[in-house]
């Protein structure tokens, strides 16, 4: 069970780490000062949450790997994040679409994790949920305004959502790790998150006058098992450069 839990915690941590790294690429380049601040705030929240998950994962593993070792000394194939979060920033519409899909799922997931029989998981989830409650509100608010904005903003949002849709299926396809966590009462039934997620996305799309892609569309998968898109390697090359060039360098 400990190894299963370690694997599971890595997924939670890697989602936060990789998405945070992506968002921080916008730092100083946001379309408005207010957006720049907001997006980097989200990035900081996510890295903070990732640190808690890494800490716990490292302790369970018992090999002496701390949060830094787990973040900076693993290769792409050892990362367990969803394919969605490693997708490039693209335009602001692409970034926002990725964020909205993720936030909507992240919120539902954390809600369930608050009831985990593992009290440490429940504690981290409870702390994170307050931050993520704001993330999901903010990204939804922006989607409504851009979807129901100008003809151009509407088209850009629609295109971004259509393109990223194929990366959402993975969130709801349980594998052996998630099944074991669910059986132990430590994690949620991920397939059961799908209906409320679809309902939330549909409600926001409706208000935003956007068309929802078909729930039965073909979906990408592989992130949770370490089979990633080419984008993750480039992201890690930048993020891990210093520790790769100067191993164990400290301030």
């Amino acid at each position: 069970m400990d190894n299963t839990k370690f694997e599971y915690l890595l997924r939670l941590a890697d989602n936060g780490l990789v998405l945070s790294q992506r968002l921080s690429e916008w730092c100083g380049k946001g379309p408005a000062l207010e957006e720049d601040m907001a997006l980097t705030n989200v990035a900081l929240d996510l890295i903070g949450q990732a640190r808690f998950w890494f800490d716990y994962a490292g302790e369970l593993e018992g090999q002496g790997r701390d949060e830094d070792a787990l973040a900076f000394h693993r290769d792409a194939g050892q990362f367990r994040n969803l394919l969605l979060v490693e997708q490039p920033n693209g335009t602001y519409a692409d970034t926002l679409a990725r964020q909205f899909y993720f936030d909507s799922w992240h919120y539902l997931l954390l809600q369930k994790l608050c009831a985990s029989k593992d009290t440490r998981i429940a504690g981290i989830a409870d702390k994170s949920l307050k931050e993520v409650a704001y993330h999901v509100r903010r990204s939804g608010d922006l989607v409504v305004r851009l979807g129901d904005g100008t003809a151009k903003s509407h088209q850009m949002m629609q295109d971004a959502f259509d393109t990223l849709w194929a990366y959402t299926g993975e969130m709801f396809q349980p594998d052996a790790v998630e099944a074991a966590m669910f059986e132990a009462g430590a994690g949620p039934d991920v397939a059961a998150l799908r209906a409320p997620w679809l309902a939330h996305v549909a409600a926001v799309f409706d208000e935003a006058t956007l068309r929802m892609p078909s729930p039965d569309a073909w979906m990408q998968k592989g992130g949770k098992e370490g089979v990633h898109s080419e984008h993750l390697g480039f992201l890690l090359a930048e993020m891990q450069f210093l520790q790769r060039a100067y191993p164990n360098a400290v301030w």
Partner: protein
Amino acid sequence: MNNEWPLWEVFIRSQHGLAHKHVGSLHAPDAEMAVNNARDVYTRRNEGVSIWVVRASDIVASSPSDKGALFEPSNSKVYRHPTFFPMPEEVKNL
């Protein structure tokens, strides 16, 4: 057509019992987003328990050229200041 987001003035209450205080301004497309943006720009260091936003264009201000008529008459009325009473040391926040 003006494509700029309108300007909003932001007021934050730092504690219950204190008044909202003007902290700055920001741009946002509407009131709801202005509150979101105010949260992100002005409450990052745990500054507040409540946020007000007001469209800058809705604020009615006195004109600098009226300064004389509005404020000078009170210059010479020193008896309006409560400075002629000894204040006990125990009384704070006055």
